[in-house]
């Protein structure tokens, strides 16, 4: 499923380096080091466009200069290196010993940066941080996490194309979810069915939360041994990662025919999603999109269920990380054209318990473009 147009790939790679190096110049960085612990690999992936399994991976980006040195990748998993080099975005890929990271510190010493930005500096383990500090005693080390977050916020056409490819896995995953529902099935077996469906389509990973039951359900978690019962509403957010890019769907389905209350709940949440969609335009803020959704709940007398007591966010950005800028009141982050995020007003109400509904969208000049084809309705599974 990897994009094969080499000219477009090359253009994308060059675009990224131009954007990053321009931001580095603005912030006076002589080098940028992207760090990826196993659960936050988005910035290294941005520079390598290759999957990695290492517990610690890095991408070292020298500032623009006469040589415009190539990106060098590092991984604690030696088996990662061949795939990184084969992809061709990193000029070099080197094995890294977490306790003796001379491969990395040697390259940094060669660069002698006066000011080094580290993306995910906040997550860098002490054993690696101390090695860097020792190797670069005169270097000012600062966080470059926000620099990279800002750059990744706006997707290129190449990235949007990647995210459209992920939509097929999203749709298949949700279909598998609905198809498998039946009384007596444990929650974790639903996950197994979804995983098989999306992995068969080439998904690299998936983030998924789930909850089943009635009005008492207050939120979603990892699956439990609980078995489905007729009349349950089963909620999920499932988020396949395809070619590096995550895309999420939020839906709820009933086991058998939905009750009037479950339908009423769906109508409320669907109205909120539509309100969020209607607010989308280039330059809108995350606050505006969240407020549009929350206002629907407030107007119907359910405003208290938009608070942190019952819910977290009204959506969030997507891309090489699954949970980018939060769509929440008070977040004044501007969402320009080609920002991608999910609109999901997921929360508890007394109508039918926790309800999950949402679609990923792209900001276009004309408003929100929904990136998946799954119908937005209250799905009813067979009994």
């Amino acid at each position, binding site marked *: 499923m990897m994009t094969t147009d080499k000219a477009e790939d090359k253009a994308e790679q060059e675009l990224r380096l131009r954007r990053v190096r321009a931001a580095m110049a603005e912030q006076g960085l002589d080098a940028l080091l992207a760090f990826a*612990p*196993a*659960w936050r690999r988005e910035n290294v992936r941005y520079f390598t466009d290759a999957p990695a*399994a*290492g*517990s*610690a991976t890095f991408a070292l980006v020298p500032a623009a200069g006469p040589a415009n040195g190539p990106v060098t990748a590092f991984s*604690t*998993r*030696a*088996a990662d*290196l*061949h*795939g990184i*080099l084969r992809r061709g975005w990193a000029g070099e890929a080197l094995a890294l010993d*977490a*306790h003796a990271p001379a491969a990395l510190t040697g390259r940094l010493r060669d660069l002698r940066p006066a000011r080094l930005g580290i993306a995910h*500096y*906040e*997550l*860098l*383990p*002490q*054993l690696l*941080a*101390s090695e860097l500090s020792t190797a670069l005693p005169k270097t000012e080390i600062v966080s470059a996490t926000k620099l990279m977050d800002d750059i990744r916020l706006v997707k290129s056409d190449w990235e949007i194309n990647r995210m459209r490819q992920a939509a097929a896995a999203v749709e298949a995953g949700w279909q598998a979810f609905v198809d498998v529902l039946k009384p007596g099935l*444990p*929650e*974790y*077996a639903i*996950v*197994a*069915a979804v*995983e*098989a*469906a999306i*992995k*068969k*389509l*080439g998904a690299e*990973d*998936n*983030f*998924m*939360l*789930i909850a089943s039951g009635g009005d008492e359900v*207050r*939120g979603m*978690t*990892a*699956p*439990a*041994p609980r078995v489905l019962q007729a009349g349950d509403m089963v909620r999920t957010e499932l988020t396949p990662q395809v070619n590096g890019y995550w895309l999420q769907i939020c839906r709820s389905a009933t086991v058998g025919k939905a009750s009037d209350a479950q339908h009423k709940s769906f109508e409320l949440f669907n109205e909120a999603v539509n309100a969020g969609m209607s607010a989308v335009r280039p330059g809108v803020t995350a606050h505006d999109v969240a407020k549009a959704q929350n206002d629907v709940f407030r107007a119907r007398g359910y405003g208290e269920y938009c608070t*942190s*007591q*019952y*819910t*977290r966010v009204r959506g969030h950005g997507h891309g090489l990380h699954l949970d980018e800028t939060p769509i929440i009141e008070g977040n004044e982050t501007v969402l320009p054209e080609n920002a991608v995020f999910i609109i999901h007003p997921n929360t508890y109400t007394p109508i039918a318990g926790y309800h999950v509904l949402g679609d990923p969208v792209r900001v276009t000049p004309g408003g929100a473009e929904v990136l998946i084809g799954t119908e937005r309705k209250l799905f009813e599974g067979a009994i």
Partner: protein
Amino acid sequence: MKRGLVVLDPEEIPETERRDRVAALQRAMSADGLDVALIYGDVSRSDDIAYLTNLCIYWNEGILAVPAEGEPVFLTKLSPRVHPWMRLVSTVTEIHSGRNFGDLAAKFLGPGDGPGKDAPGTTVGLVDAGLWPAALAEEIRRALPGWDVRDTGDLGRSPRLVPSQHERALLRRAGGLLARTTDDAAVDGMTGSERIAAAERGLRDAGFLDVLARTHDAPGGVTWLEVTGQYRNLWLHASRLADATATAAWPAALRRALATVTAAARSGMTAQRLAEAAAADITGLPLGAAAGVRWVHQADMATNGEYARYPADLPIPEGAVVVLAVEAVFPDGRHAAVADTVAVGATGAESLTSQETTR
């Protein structure tokens, strides 16, 4: 990711054993002069916390605060909405949510009802401090002025290196499941996506919490399938070679080498000695290729052993459950391996992830 079954079952690990684990840590803390131990975990690496409490950090980060006396307390950035679930699937009863860990630690350890109420300014240990995010460790230090915040050793990892009898029973059960599923996913002719889908379906359906399955193209049209699974708080791994044609001799050589390594494995053996035992089997590799032998504690498989030290002369402890792997590196940089998870005794090893058992 950790999206499989999360369950607390006292029939699997009795409550007394979990209490004993906390008590053992508290004795070690007392010996080190610690009043409180803080154990960090994130979604990719939280086994120390799960060992003590069965808590599953399915997203984000968390810190388990273990006082020298009393019950552990969990500090999390996740919302209080998930506290009921956390209490349902773990032994933790006290959970504090907040926006940053410094404030949470200060609140827990500061004046009030916490361990610092009578004697503020005592000693806190950051367990396996080298693996803590440096910024977070500094945040904790800043939040606890007057406290002696020390880096400690691997107080959380070391008790996990030799599984208990109950854990060994779980590992045996899970090993059989992983063996069958991996073998099914390694039959010739499947695509890489089909293999991974089969591994996910089989293991998630069997109640595995986490599944990390990958395929790699190896020389001669061979496919390396590696499957790592987490069952409860325990890890197993198997690697198989599929699509091996008669023209490629090296897959059979690696398999022979793994059989030899497994037969030779016993407590006290080192990776170096295991490699020497298997040297005669590793024949027929492509020109310029090399093969090696490694072992990793199952307890380190969340990170594939990459954050632990495994020198070639490190002996395997008696009673450990480890992954034995024979891995080849080819001139073009590609890798391929065969591997199984084995329980190691004084006189031999029991393979948990293959049909053949040696002892």
